[in-house]
């Protein structure tokens, strides 16, 4: 594995945004954050705070990844509001499993919880995923390291994005 990659620390949110929107990833990684204005994000925060209250939540590892909670069966959980964009959620969790694996923690699986939908989704680190994650990290490094944000096309998800006004003004 590329040595430089092991020294770069990306958060779960950054992995998520890589799949969701690269322009958002660039802004976010430069601390130009917009979501304080977003009702959708506020709702997500409330769901997060008011679900699974018996669990010990927000486990911070290396100041890099923040796991929502871990259950006794060695499953890490990620709580999400809606499954509308599932792929970013899945890769966020795969990244957490991969990250723990780098630290020597084996036998971890993941589960995405959608409390509002009463639905869950299991996530495993599958064959080939390690290589894919390493490639993704390199790409994230290139995107966030660029001096200006990448251009974006207007998509359906832009309508509800907290960054919308910054993007399209």
């Amino acid at each position: 594995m590329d040595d430089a990659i092991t020294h770069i620390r990306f958060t779960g949110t950054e992995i998520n945004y890589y799949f969701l929107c690269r322009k958002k990833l660039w802004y976010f990684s430069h601390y130009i954050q917009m979501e304080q204005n977003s009702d959708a994000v506020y709702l997500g925060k409330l769901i997060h705070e008011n679900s699974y209250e018996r669990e010990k939540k927000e486990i911070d590892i290396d100041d890099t990844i923040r796991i929502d909670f871990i259950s006794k069966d060695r499953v890490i959980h990620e709580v999400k509001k809606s499954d509308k964009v599932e792929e970013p959620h899945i890769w966020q969790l795969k990244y957490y499993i991969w990250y723990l694996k780098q630290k020597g923690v084996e036998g971890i699986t993941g589960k995405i919880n959608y409390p509002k939908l009463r639905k869950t989704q299991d996530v495993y680190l599958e064959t080939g995923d390690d290589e894919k994650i390493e490639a993704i990290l390199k790409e994230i490094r290139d995107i966030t390291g660029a001096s200006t944000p990448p251009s974006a096309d207007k998509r359906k998800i832009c309508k509800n994005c907290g960054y919308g006004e910054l993007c399209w003004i």
Partner: protein
Amino acid sequence: MKQNFYIFNSGRLKRQENTIFFEKEDGSRSVIPIENTESIYAFGEIDFNTKLFNYLAQKGIAVHIFNYYGFYSGSYYPRETLNSGQLLVKQVNHYTNRNKRITLARAFIESASFNILKNLRYYNNRGKDLGGVINTIEGYSSQIASSDSVDGLMGIEGNIRNAYYKAWPTIIDQEIEFERRVKQPPDNMVNALISYLNSLVYTTCLGEIYHTQLNPLISFLHEPGERRFSLSLDLAEVFKPIFSDRIIFTILNRQQISEKDFMTEVNFCYLNEKGRKTVIKEYDEKLKTIITHKKLDRQVSYRHLIRLECYKLVKHLIGEQEYEGFKIWW
């Protein structure tokens, strides 16, 4: 949309648990709905408690204080929560680099003069003879592009404003005594209105800057740090013709404000409480006016135009898109 709260009465503003009360001297209380508050304007004689400021900081709500004469004294500006070191570095760099600074300073003046001309054309089309002053200001505006110093730009701006103010007696139907702009203290009704409204625009700009990663101290047209959050002055330049000036023309022409709304004992230099309330009401309605934004293709309020201006500045500073100041399109 969050609301501004304007307090004219005297009393005590305090937090009790998670509620903010305004307690009048007679003991009656009114609740300020915290989640729905953008900022608080304090005109009365008001006591505050520390718990209140802690809570306001947590919710990111500013308090703007005005003295007995309605003159802006200062703001309680809560701790910054949106910080981007990288953006700050770029903002500073755009100030220290002469060419970069002038590019931005020009953009502010250009849109300010565009908006001034728009006001003049509006009244010119309504039978006021303003052709001469429009030509004069167009002449000054054409010098903006070739001016290569901030002082030079400020000079052009001064000329534009002087010519503009000379036209005000033509625009305003009431008999007014207004020849030139005088501040600190203003010397007549119109100057008092300008001072008061400009301070409101300034605080609105400051409030919007607060909700972005921009640093309010580093400005481009005005010199940074001169007692004030000078980036707010830069932005206010763009919006004064649309917010302040138009309100002044309207309320004077509709006879909503006249000499009796000023404090006679200080030579009409300041609005009295009734006058202030009339102006605030107009100002607040102006902020809430909704228009369809051409580029975003969505409904936005006048106030939100200022926030969008901040976003355009952010994009300019990070090198994504060149800033073009807001130009009124309706």
